[in-house]
């Protein structure tokens, strides 16, 4: 690493930099020095560096063009390692000690870029060249063209490492959001703040003041900075005003919500521990005043893109605010008085002005430097940095000016972008030869200052104050504002010099005047086609310095007025936003909230292996020491439960409390089977259908009292079923007296299953509750107490097919209850079981679950056709009778067993006849669930088979072509274990 010059050769006196502190920074492996208050761009200029990048397509050497966020050329990779950020504008990157940056898009170096060969091939690389190339031969696309294009294309590179920074998202509310803290924004904030309104003033810059920081105007006969400092001090003292610097309001979204990115830590080497790098704010604003200023526009001429050719206003900014100049010898090319300001300001700082080249024949003259009236810049020289500018003078003669920088000024474009984010289009103002806000602005938004086309300082101050008064409907008139210049501004159009061709419009995407002419020639004449065919305006700068020039040239070629050609639509974000800011804290293990069951901490102690089920963590199995494969654990859990007793946490299944005088009628409506006559203290299995007769979900409903039911759902469908029930309640049956509320998380619920389940529960349930088979038969339910008086609920339902119960207590006691079941159950060798064993047992029993209720199956398919009651109307009843759903060969649920017990059965496999073709035309059905059954000693499956209930004993092929599986299976009853249901009724 070579050490750069210690002295900053292009530093000037003055500026808002802190010379008492020196900051060291590195650019392209060279070290330089700058000061607090510098940006990377200003510090590089001060160090004599003009070459900052290479252009996208032609790899032409480029320097900084502007001093703001509209910068197209000086885009760098900031920081190294995982925090590396591509396409960072050097003009907005605040300098800090140890800053590290590299230029982009060049190999091997900025000074010598091998890809510059593209510039010599420019005739083949004009706009839209890729629509006409890379097509032949077809085989070359994948192996040759695509890899080359991938290497060559793109702007900047990613670190390919995970972003290590934290980002927050936040919400703010205000009466008035003021976007931009230049003269208009500051005076609006003062007015609104003093009225007591809730105000947010946001600026993308790290210093408030806008263009007041860049110009040498006086306010009230004093430096403008004095008024800015005073104003900020007053605003800071008001509790109702919030100042947000380094905050880009990047989008106007619906409902008065604005997106804003606050760069909390980007000006520091690293964020402080626990602090975010950036915050993405949603600002809810009742009113918004856009005071975003204006962006200077260039004039196109051949080779107008060399390092050192900059916007005239930017040269002023670098000189006045940052105390830096691009060269000791500068020329200006302008079509208005504005460019002359650059010459005057730089001359005052001791810079040699080569000449002011003014297109107007009546341009003002100067005693300090030469002004060439009626002249135009037509070409430039100096590949790695400007050395000469060629001019055509008024009399037609050519002259060459020696200079290291050229300030170009073609006028100013109001920053209308945010006014267009909701498809508004700006309107053409012929007096200003510029687009100004117009049409339908986002509701609640108004505009003040230069963003509206009011370009004088006095105008900005006044319109800002008035804008606040109008937005908030204040009774006051505009308070005292400082005296400021009020020079009338006229702008005339001057987009390009005649005869130019390789004259750059969009410097970031390398689009020239020649490209616009080509687009016109090839028929791409509308502004939308112009944009997409040439890619003008499609780079990271969204064409801030190029859109106007491009469409003006197209208008001329098409023989139309500019307003007729119109503009394309500006879309958020105004400037690029890090993806990390969009994600905020929603990443990694915080991507979604995690729901833990009441027995979770106990299960963790027990060494359970967990599985994600939606947001839930459920125990999948409980390995014992010595078990090395999950099948060992799961097989053991199944056998132990069926042999004695097992316990499984089933809290996650939805529990919906249904109450009201019409609760039973309501259930009759949502379930296809009957519930009106369900007795108190009885549970019933229920099947819910969609309007079209397809099954949504199944569960149970327990009647705790005449007017009180508890409805259960599958885990995955809890939210969906609740939503469905609320829709029925509110919209389909609003006259029913029924109330719903979720109680899924309120109660810890455990399945206790197996021949010894009752014996175990009798040690838990308080003695006054008789849970013998006679007193508490299959499908009973009751409110009870346990362990000496704790309120609980008991349901005698079985998913496993064994004698089984589900016991529920308020969740805070769930942990203790589980531990009590384990200790009391020791004598029965009680075995905790997880979702895998749960799944095996329900498949062994032939119980339908989510795999079977897959959104295409009906009650008939599930073998529950007769459950759809015709004695009452329920959702789905009528359409379940459609002929298409009731054909003779309708799919029916069956069980499947492999002929060879060592064969696999896989879910997803299709069922084919033993012989014959294997294709869709011969498809007989498909397998929905499969598991190894330790009870039967082979794999088993559940599936749907055409006319399945009439094909018991038949042999079929189970085929899975993708996994190359073909197995012979026998069609059997889905109820593999205890088909008579003797165990559940024990």
């Amino acid at each position, binding site marked *: 690493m070579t050490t750069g010059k210690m002295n900053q050769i292009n530093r000037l006196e003055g500026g808002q930099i802190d010379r008492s502190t020196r900051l060291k920074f590195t650019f392209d492996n060279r070290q330089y020095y700058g000061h607090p208050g510098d940006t990377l761009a200003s510090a590089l200029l001060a160090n004599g560096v003009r070459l900052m990048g290479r252009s996208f397509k032609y790899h032409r050497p480029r320097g900084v063009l502007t001093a703001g966020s509209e910068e197209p050329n000086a885009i760098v990779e900031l920081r190294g390692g995982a925090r590396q950020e591509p396409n960072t504008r050097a003009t907005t990157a605040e300098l800090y000690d140890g800053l590290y940056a590299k230029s982009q898009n060049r190999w091997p170096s900025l000074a010598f870029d091998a890809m510059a060969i593209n510039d010599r091939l420019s005739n083949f690389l004009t706009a839209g060249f890729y629509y006409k190339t890379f097509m032949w031969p077809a085989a070359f696309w994948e192996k040759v063209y695509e890899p080359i294009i991938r290497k060559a294309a793109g702007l900047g590179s990613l670190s390919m490492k995970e972003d290590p920074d*934290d980002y*927050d*998202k*936040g*919400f*703010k*509310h205000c009466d008035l959001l003021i976007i931009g803290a230049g003269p208009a924004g500051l005076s609006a904030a003062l007015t609104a703040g003093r009225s007591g309104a*809730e105000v947010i003033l946001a600026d993308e810059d790290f210093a408030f003041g806008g263009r007041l920081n860049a110009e040498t105007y006086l306010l009230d006969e004093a430096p403008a900075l004095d008024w800015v400092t005073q104003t900020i001090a007053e605003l800071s003292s008001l509790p109702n005003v919030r100042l947000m610097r380094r905050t880009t309001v990047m989008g106007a979204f619906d409902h008065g919500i604005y997106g804003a990115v606050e760069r909390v830590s980007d000006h520091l080497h690293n964020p402080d521990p*626990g*602090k*975010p790098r950036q*915050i993405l704010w*949603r600002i*809810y604003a009742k009113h918004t005043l856009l005071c975003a200023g204006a962006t200077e526009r260039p004039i196109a001429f051949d080779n107008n893109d060399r390092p050192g050719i900059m916007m005239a206003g930017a040269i002023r900014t670098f000189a006045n605010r940052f105390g830096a100049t691009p060269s000791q010898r500068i020329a200006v090319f302008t079509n208005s008085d504005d460019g002359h300001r650059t010459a005057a300001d730089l001359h005052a700082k001791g810079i040699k002005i080569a000449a002011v080249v003014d297109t107007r024949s009546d341009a003002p003259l100067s005693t300090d430097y030469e002004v060439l009236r009626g002249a135009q810049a037509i070409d430039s020289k100096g590949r790695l940095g400007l050395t000469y500018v060629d001019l055509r003078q008024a009399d037609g003669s050519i002259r060459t000016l020696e200079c290291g920088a050229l300030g170009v000024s073609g006028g100013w474009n109001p920053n209308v972008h945010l006014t267009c984010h909701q498809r508004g289009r700006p309107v053409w103002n012929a007096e200003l030869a510029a687009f100004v806000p117009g049409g339908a602005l986002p509701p609640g938004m108004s505009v003040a200052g230069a963003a509206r086309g009011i370009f004088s300082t006095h105008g900005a101050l006044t319109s800002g104050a008035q804008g606040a008064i109008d937005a908030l409907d204040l009774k006051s008139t505009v308070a005292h504002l400082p005296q400021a210049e009020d020079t009338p501004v006229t702008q005339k159009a001057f987009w390009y010099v005649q005869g130019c061709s390789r004259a750059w419009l969009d410097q970031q995407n390398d689009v020239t005047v020649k490209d616009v002419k080509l687009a016109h020639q090839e028929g791409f004449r509308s502004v939308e086609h112009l944009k997409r065919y040439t890619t003008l305006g499609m780079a990271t700068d969204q064409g801030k310095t190029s859109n106007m020039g491009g469409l003006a040239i197209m208008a001329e070629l098409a023989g139309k007025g500019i307003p007729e050609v119109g503009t394309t639509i500006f879309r958020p974000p105004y400037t690029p936003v890090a993806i990390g800011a969009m994600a905020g*804290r*929603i990443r990694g293990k*915080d991507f979604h*909230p*995690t*729901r*833990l*069951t009441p027995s*979770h*901490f106990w299960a963790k102690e027990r060494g359970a292996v967990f599985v994600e089920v939606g*947001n*839930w963590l459920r125990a999948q199995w409980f390995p014992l020491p010595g078990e090395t494969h999950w099948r060992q654990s799961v097989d053991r859990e199944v056998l132990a439960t069926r042999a004695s007793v097992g316990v499984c946490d089933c809290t996650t299944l939805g529990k919906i*409390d249904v*109450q*009201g*005088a*019409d609760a039973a009628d309501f259930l009759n409506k949502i379930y296809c089977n009957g519930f009106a006559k369900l007795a108190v203290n009885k549970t019933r299995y229920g099947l819910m259908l969609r309007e079209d007769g397809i099954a949504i979900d199944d569960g149970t409903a327990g009647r705790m009292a005449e*007017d009180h039911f508890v409805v259960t759902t599958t885990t995955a469908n809890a939210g969906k079923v609740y939503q469905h029930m609320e829709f029925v309640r509110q919209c389909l049956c609003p*006259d*029913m*007296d029924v*109330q719903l*509320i*979720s*109680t*899924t*998380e*309120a*109660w*810890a619920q455990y399945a206790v299953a197996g021949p010894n389940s009752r014996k175990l529960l009798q040690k838990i349930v308080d003695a006054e509750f008789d849970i013998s088979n006679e007193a508490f038969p299959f499908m009973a339910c009751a409110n009870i*107490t*346990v*362990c*000496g*008086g*704790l*309120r609980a609920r008991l349901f005698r339902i079985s998913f496993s097919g064994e004698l089984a119960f589900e016991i529920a*207590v*308020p*969740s*805070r*006691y769930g*942990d*203790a*209850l589980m531990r*009590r079941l384990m200790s009391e159950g020791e004598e029965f060798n009680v075995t905790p079981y997880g979702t895998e064993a749960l799944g095996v047992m329900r498949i062994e029993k032939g119980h339908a679950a989510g795999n079977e209720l897959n959104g295409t199956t009906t009650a008939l398919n599930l073998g529950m056709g007769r459950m759809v009651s015709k004695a009452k109307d329920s959702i789905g009843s009528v359409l379940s009778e459609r002929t298409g759903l009731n054909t003779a060969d309708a799919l029916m649920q069956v069980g499947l067993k492999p002929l060879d017990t060592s064969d696999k059965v896989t879910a997803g496999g299709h069922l084919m006849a033993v012989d014959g073709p294997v294709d869709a035309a011969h498809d007989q059905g498909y397998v929905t669930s499969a598991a190894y059954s330790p009870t039967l000693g082979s794999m088993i499956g559940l599936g749907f088979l055409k006319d399945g209930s009439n094909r018991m004993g038949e042999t079929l092929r189970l085929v899975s072509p993708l996994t190359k599986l073909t197995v012979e299976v026998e069609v059997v009853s889905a109820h593999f274990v205890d088909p008579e249901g003797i165990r559940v009724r024990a």
Partner: protein
Amino acid sequence: MHNLSPITALGGTAPRIDTVAKLTLSENPDIALASVTARADHTTACRAHLNALLGSDAPAPGKACLHDPELAFWTGPDQWMIAAPFETHEDLAARLKAQFGVAASITEQTDAWACFDLRGDGIDPVMELLCAINIRAMQTGDAARTVIHHLGCFVIRMAPAGDLRILGPRASAGSLHHAILTAMTSAL
């Protein structure tokens, strides 16, 4: 008296307390909750019972009635949540059912929710990082439904003014606690 020991939503035997700068986040397991929904044709009677219980009208949308020991906040059309100290009101749902009779459907909600209390300086900047409530405008007695880290929560501005109560789904207590603590570390 039963002999099962409860655990808190975060899984401890004692509530978790965290302090960042001058703000304290306390897990609060000592709340009993019950939902009260007026039954059809009984809305007037239901409101009358609420009035008798709270000593004032049932709270309007966006509001809470910070009565002692019962606190009520609005949760939906003709629907409210009642909160009371767990120690003395563990049977809150049963008590309310006895009082309201057929006028309302009452459901125990105690362990459907986890409660976190914020007390001290810096509540507003922390809440700005968590949810869309206009926290600067939230007064004592305001109650809002909102979303914090994908979780549907209730937020109540308690008395003394400034204290904030956050109720979130109990099973996600860990995620909610983590989100609040992260916001505290970030903002303060």
